């Protein structure tokens, strides 16, 4: 069975990259454009892992992660955050919000798949 990944990112570029990378690696990919949409689709898609950006309109990554963790059903789902190298502070905040791990941008397909493998069974 294919593993399901929910990606949340407002950048069309990054969304497409995630899609291509994840599909090539044999994942099923569901995409949302911001935190609000992420929480909306979460209920239906029941993913195995979530990859989210931090800076997003409407509901940012921190809020989204908190929203996911508040949901009993998804308290334990692995959530990976897309961050940049310089974002030490954001990384910390993401972890406090409940992020499982992070993927440092610039976007690198190998790093992404490695990180997903690391947090999923």
């Amino acid at each position, binding site marked *: 069975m294919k593993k399901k990944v929910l990606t949340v990112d407002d950048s069309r570029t990054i969304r497409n990259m995630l899609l291509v990378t994840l599909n090539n690696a044999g994942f099923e990919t569901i995409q949302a454009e911001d935190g609000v949409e992420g929480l909306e689709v979460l209920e239906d898609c029941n993913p195995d892992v979530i990859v989210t950006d931090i800076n997003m309109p409407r509901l940012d990554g921190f809020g989204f992660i908190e929203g996911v963790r508040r949901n009993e059903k998804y308290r334990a789902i692995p959530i990976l955050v897309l961050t940049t190298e310089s974002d030490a502070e954001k990384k910390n905040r993401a972890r406090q919000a409940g992020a499982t791990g992070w993927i440092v941008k610039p976007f690198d397909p190998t790093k992404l798949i490695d990180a997903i493998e690391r947090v999923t*069974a």
Partner: protein
Amino acid sequence: MDMNEIKEIFFQECEEQLAELESGLLRLNDGDRDPETVNAVFRAVHSIKGGAGAFGLDDLVSFAHVFETTLDCVRSGRLEPNQDVLKVMLKSADVLADLTNCARDGGSVDEARSKQLIRELEALAHGEMPSHAEAPAAKPVAAPKAAAPAAPAAPVANDQGFVPVAFSFDDFGDDMPVESVLPAYEVIFKPKADLYRKGNEATLLLRDLSRLGEMSIYCNMDALPSLEELQPENAYFTWRAVIKTDKGEDAVRAVFEFAEWDCDLEIKALEEDNGEQSDDESPMTPVPFDLSALFDEPEPPVGLVEEEERIAASEAEAAAAASNVVQLPGTKAADSAKSAPAAPAAAAAAAASAAAAAPAAQTIRVDLDRVDRLINLVGELVINQAMLSQSVIENDTNGTSSINMGLEELQQLTREIQDSVMAIRAQPVKPVFQRMARTVREIADITGKSVRLVTEGENTEVDKTVIDKLAEPLTHMIRNAVDHGLEMPEKRVALGKNPEGTVRLTAKHRSGRIIIELADDGQGINRERVRQKAIDNDLIAADANLSDEEIDNLIFHAGFSTAEKVSDLSGRGVGMDVVKRSIQALGGRISIQSKPGHGSVFTLSLPLTLAVLDGMVVTVANQTLVVPLTAIVETLQPEANSIHSFGANQRLISIRNSFCPLVDVGKILNFRYQAANPVEGVALLVESEGGGQRALMVDAIQGQRQVVIKSLEANYTHVPGIAAATILGDGRVALILDVDAVVAASRGQPLRHENALAAFG
């Protein structure tokens, strides 16, 4: 989809982000202090940087990075976005746009400019932040309280009668070299409850660890309380692993990268060969652990099912203790957590608290080609409907009202469909207006004038083709307005005006057209100078008696320019005549109103779409032609005594005491060889390129109609004197007259025969 396509998407997105960036900065400049505005601006730059990084566009990344850092200072309230700061930021946005274009199209940017801005941005970031290092709230993350119970009532693990299972590597596939010369590391790993709260899973970490080399693993369950006291959310185990690997301690540590804050972790290199002995000294009572069992489908032992259902995901560890298996994170565990009544509420609350954000309209992106195909089809539908109506009228069905009613409804529906389809291509003028902001900044810099651009109605929509073609004439008009219209600040002060000049750009819809106004509060048109210039250039006679309006309109004459020196702005060899022509090419009109000392207002009136045109259907030498309505000033019925011969071939018509050349359309188009008798026809007074009026002679007027424009070039080639074709209600093709070309031909420039055979070899 391949990388090139994604790159194309990236550049499209950059354009949107740049527009977002600029409009955000402008809002800030206007005093908007909504945190969401700052966030949006930050996000735009951040997004560009993110994508650029993925494509290795280093110049773009490094500039965006500096920009982002400074924006972050604004975002966190460390830098007040005052006018000076925003000036730098707006310029930076321009450079970011240049760098983006450069990355897409090649070419180079003004490096001195971008370096200067990098310095200015950095100065802003540092200047307002005494110490960059300590400022970014690098507050140590409050270490989550270790959840290990202080003193569990009694270690019960062994009392539960668990059977240790021999540890096996078989399931991990790799054949690990079993050479004892490999360095060995002892890893003591004690997860805290928070580890699970963040979706990490101790067993997965251990699995990863085991991939590094040969590993033995022990689990200390001393801390595990009795089932009754067991807190499902807590972590009770301490794992001890001994791993032999040549990958180094860093690799071992890297496994725990995501977990480092949520566990107690000790990693130490072991002396060779004593890896197995150290556990004697260990205070733990270890249970060798079968990791492989974790990754088989677990079968909950009978009797424990109830427990498993009661306890949720995070205490998988505890369940493991009870059953020797651990649930797969996120799957079974999630299923078993059926007690989630709070979930939707929580999500909803999150969404609600997230934003009192306006509900964003749903959008999809569609290939322009598809839209155009739809528009073409609807165009055909319109024609077909017209043909059907016409044939019903012709075969008069004696008032079978049901047919007529049906036809009327069809006509109504067709029109609605056409409007809706046209609306798909409609786009707000916003991006063009935003580009003008940059033009204003640049020209203000060059001229040393202080200018403020105010835009209104930027969400007014118009066909995308019109928008695309609007930028150039608008840019030129804005340059003109700032360069010629506005006075220097000192002069403005002396005149009692605000030293900062205002240029106001407005868009609105009016009776099926879009009206764009460009107003400045400058000096207005210097009519004396314009008049003198026109006399000098032989545009008017020295004693010509012209109204103010007529003088103002002289600036649209070809080659007219009042700029004493050709500056590098309004210069570029382009005059307002070119602006006028490009507006007319769009089926639009331009007019000017000027008030000396108070400024000028240029008004553009443009069709909402280029796919249809309002035309006057006329007959010329038995042929049906369409004349664009925008070109026609008035129509008149010539009387014999108003026609005057002039020279061998020319004829003039007198209209209210002025003489206007008559243009015989049929003759110019070679539809007939004999000049028509003007008295038997109709004259269309048209305004042509260069502002000159001509009376076009046609045989008769059939009526006014909105027609769908069809390209002649698609299957044939350009035809001199003809702008395009259309299909009328009788199903036949009618040609649309190119008024400018016909007028030019009448002035003795023969319609260029542009090798009509070009398409035909």
